[in-house]
């Protein structure tokens, strides 16, 4: 028997390029390349049933591990499966009939256990009969059902504390399927390469084509030796080496005479049940890792849990936690609607997304899940690592939550369009069939690393204290999508909001992450697109859109607020509550006439600004008003005042990216303008309009000269949105005006000197605008399609059409602006 065949570990077979004949390569095998076509084997290794394939393991080890696991199952089966008719050998005679009769009340008697098993079997059957009806030709056959039933029964008997819960069968079915798949693959290969699968009685390949051999298979070994010795051995060995390494693997794995004999044949149809049981057990137990599926089925908190909740609830909360960092507007929308994570996450987690995807897609996803290591991470140095979610403790757990969040983001737009929890849940529970799995997995991978960040995994759920200065909030910006998922830079800034960065760019080129800005920009654009879409529909004052918008705009406003807070910190300026009061006044007498607001604000601001520093406050308001008029006049098909503003919003909004969704503010309460139906809507609209206008004008001014308006916008932007729990009231109140003033001054001062930087920034802005335009346009395409799926509100749809027209005109203007900028 040529040693070269058996000794090289399996890892080498897939490393043909690295293989130096006979020596063991030191190259670590990327696990994904191992056994590419033998999914069942790969999963067994990943789940911990078989030893991981490093350069140290050989096929023999694999075989031994396989055999051991199978033996365990066989003994378990013998132990637990009860047939009361079969009396055990060596039992005392006469058997104690009082105990062992069918009507015996004793639960330990054979009959008692028999009836208990029968009860369990009935429960399992209820589920099994409904397993994968679309693949009924495979899963609904008696043989398959019998095997699955037995496996589940035995596992439940072994783990009486869990019992059987609905969903376990769905975890088992794909495991069984891939094993069967392997076996089929093996038999195919066997057919193709018959000659290599012949019995090797004596360690030699017996060539069936060998003429002298083909007649009589029962030759004595001596004779065989004589014949084959001369040429057979050399020929056969060579040919095996020449084989595709994958085929080689299969041959070696299915050798009936290797270690452990037939029990050790790694791919064996006979022992599918045993292997499936071992895989299922490993999956449920988590193999000493952090994610044990069995936990998800239990109703009581797991020992060592920090939150004292049942594990699946805790995991769902972890999911939401991650979502809040990634996409807080979606998160806040969901929380507003009252959609608790476990409503849908229960199903997702318990069955590992088995019900959301077709079997083929599911297998791909599970490939990735199992690839992630399940070992528990070392505790972080931070002392509050103990309060983290258990789900985040292992790489596999993180990946699972990342996939869930990626799925949520995938159907983001349809979720955001729902207005009551029922429809939202409906959408969540009927995940679209045609998702691109690869993209989803990529998204998930990026989110996985996000979940790794220490702050996220260790921060207490729900409330993120802004004052603690964690940069959790800041990190959440990456929206994976057409922009490709930007890994948000590990920002050292406490609040990595858009405004602050822009300020820094203008201010100095120190530590500004230009890339960071640009990366965030595309992601922000996506968000902005949403807002734009919604703003178009909003004309009807639908409560739905208003809530959605409110969520977004609140986050926007809060961003501004947070930014200003930061600025205040940086500049160390003290606040002026009266100034804020002025703003509040201006805000509150908001009516349908927005220009009033602006005027009021202008007045306020000008007061403030003039009081603080030498700033030409006279001109900005005027210019501002002029601009506004300009814009209004430019627009053509103007419906109501509102629509005009919306158009303004669109045109103004697109060039500049929206502020980021920062933290989760589920219930942002705006100071309601009295006498308005949709209070929040009105205020938000005002604020947003203000903000958008501000931004646009900022850009405009920047193009012309200095961003003097920035201060005004800041002031306006900081208009009192009633701060949420997460924000320090004082800070928000004090921040705006002072910071605005300071900023303006600094802008003035530095602007001259930092012209170069400005230009650079402008160019960047222009580019980003262009991208943004494209996004909007595509969004409108999508919007058209989506309009139908929204609530059947005819007027809404009609308006959408109108809105699109106006939007297109706005877009053309955007293009002009961008050209302008790029010239500069």
């Amino acid at each position, binding site marked *: 028997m040529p040693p070269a065949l058996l000794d090289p570990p399996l890892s080498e077979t897939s490393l043909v390029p690295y293989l130096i004949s006979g020596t063991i390569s030191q190259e670590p095998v990327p696990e994904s390349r191992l056994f590419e076509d033998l999914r069942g084997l790969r999963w067994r290794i990943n789940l911990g049933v078989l030893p991981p394939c490093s350069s140290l393991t050989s096929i023999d080890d694999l075989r031994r591990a396989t055999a051991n696991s199978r033996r365990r199952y066989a003994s378990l089966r013998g132990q637990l499966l009860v047939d009361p*008719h079969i009396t055990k050998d060596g039992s005392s005679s006469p058997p104690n*009939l*009082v105990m062992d*009769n*069918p*009507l*015996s*009340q004793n639960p330990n008697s054979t009959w008692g256990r028999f*009836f208990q098993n029968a009860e369990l079997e009935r429960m399992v059957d209820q589920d099994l009969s409904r397993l994968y009806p679309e693949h009924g030709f495979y899963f609904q056959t008696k043989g398959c059902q019998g095997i699955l039933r037995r496996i589940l029964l035995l596992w439940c008997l072994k783990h009486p504390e869990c019992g059987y819960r609905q969903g376990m069968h769905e975890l088992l079915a794909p495991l069984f399927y891939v094993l069967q798949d392997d076996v089929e693959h093996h038999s195919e290969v066997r057919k193709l390469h018959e000659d290599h699968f012949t019995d090797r009685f004596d360690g030699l390949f017996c060539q069936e084509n060998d003429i002298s051999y083909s007649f009589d298979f029962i030759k004595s070994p001596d004779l065989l030796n004589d014949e084959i010795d001369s040429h057979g051995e050399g020929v056969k060995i060579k040919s095996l080496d020449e084989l595709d390494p994958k085929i080689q693997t299969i041959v070696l794995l299915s050798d009936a005479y290797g270690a452990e004999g037939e029990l050790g044949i790694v791919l064996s149809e006979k022992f599918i049940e045993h292997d499936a049981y071992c895989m299922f057990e490993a999956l449920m137990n988590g193999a000493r890792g952090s994610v044990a599926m069995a936990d998800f089925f239990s109703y009581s908190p797991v020992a060592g849990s920090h939150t004292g909740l049942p594990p699946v609830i805790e995991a769902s909360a972890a999911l939401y936690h991650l979502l809040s960092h990634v996409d807080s507007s979606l998160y806040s929308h969901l929380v507003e609607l009252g959609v608790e994570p476990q409503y849908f996450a229960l199903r997702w987690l318990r069955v590992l997304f088995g019900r959301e995807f077709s079997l083929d897609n599911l297998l791909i996803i599970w490939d990735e899940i199992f690839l992630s290591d399940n070992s528990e991470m070392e505790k972080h140095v931070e002392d509050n690592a103990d309060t983290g979610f258990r789900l985040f403790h292992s790489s596999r757990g993180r990946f699972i939550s990342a996939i869930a969040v990626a799925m949520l983001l995938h159907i983001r737009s349809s979720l955001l369009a729902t207005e009551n929890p029922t429809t939202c849940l409906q959408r969540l529970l009927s995940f679209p069939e045609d998702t691109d799995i690869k993209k989803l997995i990529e998204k998930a991978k990026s989110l996985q690393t996000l979940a790794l960040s220490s702050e996220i995994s260790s921060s207490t759920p729900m409330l993120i204290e802004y004052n603690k200065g964690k940069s959790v909030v800041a990190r959440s910006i990456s929206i994976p999508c057409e922009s490709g998922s930007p890994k948000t830079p590990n920002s050292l800034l406490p609040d990595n909001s858009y405004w602050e960065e822009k300020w820094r760019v203008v201010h100095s080129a120190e530590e500004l992450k230009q890339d960071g800005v640009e990366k965030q920009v595309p992601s922000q654009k996506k968000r902005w697109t949403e807002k734009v879409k919604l703003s178009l529909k909003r004309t009807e004052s639908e409560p739905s859109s208003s809530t959605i918008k409110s969520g977004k705009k609140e986050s926007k406003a809060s961003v501004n607020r947070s930014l200003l807070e930061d600025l205040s910190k940086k500049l160390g300026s003290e606040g002026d509550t009266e100034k804020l009061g002025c703003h509040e006044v201006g805000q509150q007498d908001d009516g349908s006439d927005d220009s009033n607001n602006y005027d009021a604000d202008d007045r306020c601001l000008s007061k403030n600004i003039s009081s603080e520093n030498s700033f030409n406050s006279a001109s900005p308001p005027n210019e501002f008003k002029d601009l506004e008029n300009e814009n209004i006049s430019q627009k053509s098909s103007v419906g109501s005042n509102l629509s005009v503003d919306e158009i303004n919003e669109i045109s103004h909004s697109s060039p500049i990216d929206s502020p980021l969704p920062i933290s989760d503010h589920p219930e942002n309460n705006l100071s309601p303008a009295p006498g308005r139906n949709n209070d929040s809507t009105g205020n938000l609209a005002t604020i947003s309009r203000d903000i958008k206008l501000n931004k646009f004008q900022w850009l405009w001014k920047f193009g012309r000269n200095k961003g003097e308006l920035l201060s005004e916008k800041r002031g306006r932007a900081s208009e009192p949105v009633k701060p949420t729990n997460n924000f320090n009231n004082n800070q928000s109140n004090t921040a705006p005006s002072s910071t605005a003033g300071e900023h303006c001054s600094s802008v003035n001062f530095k602007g001259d000197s930092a012209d170069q930087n400005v230009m650079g920034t402008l160019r960047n802005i222009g580019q980003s605008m262009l991208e943004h335009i494209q996004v909007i346009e595509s969004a409108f395409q999508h919007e058209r399609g989506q309009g139908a799926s929204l609530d059947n509100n005819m007027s809404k749809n009609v308006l959408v059409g109108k809105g699109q027209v106006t939007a297109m005109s706005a877009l053309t203007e955007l293009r002009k602006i961008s050209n302008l900028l790029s010239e500069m």
Partner: protein
Amino acid sequence: MVLVLALGDMHIPHRAPDIPAKFKSMLVPGKIQHIICTGNLCIKEVHDYLKTLCPDLHITRGEYDEDSRYPETKTLTIGQFKLGLCHGHQVIPWGDLDSLAMLQRQLDVDILVTGHTHQFTAYKHEGGVVINPGSATGAYSSITYDVNPSFVLMDIDALRVVVYVYELIDGEVKVDKIDFKKTSTSVPAL
């Protein structure tokens, strides 16, 4: 794995108030698939109680039964076995094996279940089995006062039947087991 309960001759309420408590605790619904009752219940309440144990209930008429609609004899097939049911007061002499064998041939059954003697007996006879489950309440009979409450549970499994006999002796439940194997079925003559 079919469980069949055979009992009879309760004589409730005339000669006995109720089935013994220890028996009742063992008879829980859900385990038993069929009940065959030889007769002499006597009242409808007993019939209802048996019905709660198992929906598939077969009764033949005893001489003291108040419901006259029960048949005199009954045959049914469970698994590979044919069972015959009769109260037994019609077969004279009461409890005589040869006469009962005549009835068995007449009904053409493998297992014949009869009562009336209030004594448990089980005979293997001519390739078949004749079983008398006795009286479930231990009611006195026309023959004797010394009656132990007893009933029979048959576990029919393909070609094998295991007969468990439950007797209440001195307040304790005693269980006994008898195995019967049926020779391969012959083609039934038409």
